[in-house]
């Protein structure tokens, strides 16, 4: 009788061990975050491929700023797979498309980066024109207006660039979160 109990316990334990092992490889469906609010919602997500080549060490992304632009780097010491920044058109959305939340954030980055680059660039050009007009000692009343308008545009552009980089940071965070660990 005792040996039977022992056998049943062993079977139970071995089955549970096998199941736990299998689940550490494949993700259970975790909750999904709403990209706008960052809160967790109840819908399901499509898990990215979870073979060994998609391990965190080899695949996780980060970005490192580099004189006004940012290099997107894969893995611990991995290659630079793209550079984003003023008027740089690297497709971050395609890079992180395996994670829906990351793709949404990447779209937000693209929109804000374009707006910020365009308006900020135009603003900087306007400031320069205003400064040149002022330094030429012209009494043109438009020159202070140009400088102020340019500065406002630069500030607006910088704000959008900041928002864009926040979205990029979130995009890579979500992408890394959805990697097999």
């Amino acid at each position, binding site marked *: *009788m005792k040996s*039977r*109990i*022992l056998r*049943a*316990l062993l*079977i*139970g*334990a071995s*089955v*549970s061990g096998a*199941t*736990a092992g299998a*689940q*550490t490889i494949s*993700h*259970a469906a*975790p909750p999904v*975050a709403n990209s706008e609010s*960052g*809160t*967790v919602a109840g819908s399901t997500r499509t898990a990215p491929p979870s073979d060994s080549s998609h391990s*965190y*060490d080899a695949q*996780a992304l*980060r*970005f*490192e*700023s*580099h*004189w006004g632009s940012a290099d997107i780097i894969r893995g*611990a010491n991995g290659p630079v797979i793209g550079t984003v920044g003023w008027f740089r058109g690297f497709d971050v959305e395609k890079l992180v498309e395996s994670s829906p939340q990351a793709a949404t954030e990447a779209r937000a980055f693209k929109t804000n980066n374009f707006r910020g680059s365009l308006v900020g660039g135009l603003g900087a050009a306007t400031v320069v024109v205003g400064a040149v007009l002022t330094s030429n000692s012209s009494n043109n009343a438009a020159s202070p207006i140009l400088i102020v308008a340019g500065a406002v545009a630069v500030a607006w552009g910088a704000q959008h660039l*900041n928002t864009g*980089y*926040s979205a990029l*940071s*979130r995009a*890579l*965070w979500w992408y*890394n*979160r959805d990697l097999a*660990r």
Partner: protein
Amino acid sequence: MSRLLLALCTGTCILITGPTLLTAQERSYEENALRIDEHGGTISIVRGVSETVVAKIGVFRAVDVAAVVSPSPKAIAEATVFQRNYRPGTWITSLGIATLGAAVGASRISGLNRAIPTSLTIASVSLITYGGFRLETAHRALARAIWWYNRDLK
């Protein structure tokens, strides 16, 4: 027979507790993984889906980033690089900007030796470039520190 049933129940209980452990692991990244958020010259380190701010690094306000990323040795090493470069970087860049202002002011003083504003301009550009380089190094180290910290989460 009832003992046999009891043993089977125990096995089933162990079976059920497996996924609970997994959920805890899954939550570890969701709740603890860090990322950098930058707004108006202030770098914030935020944690998890809830985006709780765990540290704010201002222009002249350094934070013990090593303590934030402390469980991970490689993250601590990178955080040390950040701390070694961030404050000197901000001070040197600020000094460069101040020197540039002095150069502009000196250039408007009539009768002043032209070598003074020129040397001030050269000094300011050098300081701003060197300070910027230190800040770039600090930012890259911070990005790597966060990456290693997240990598070492269970």
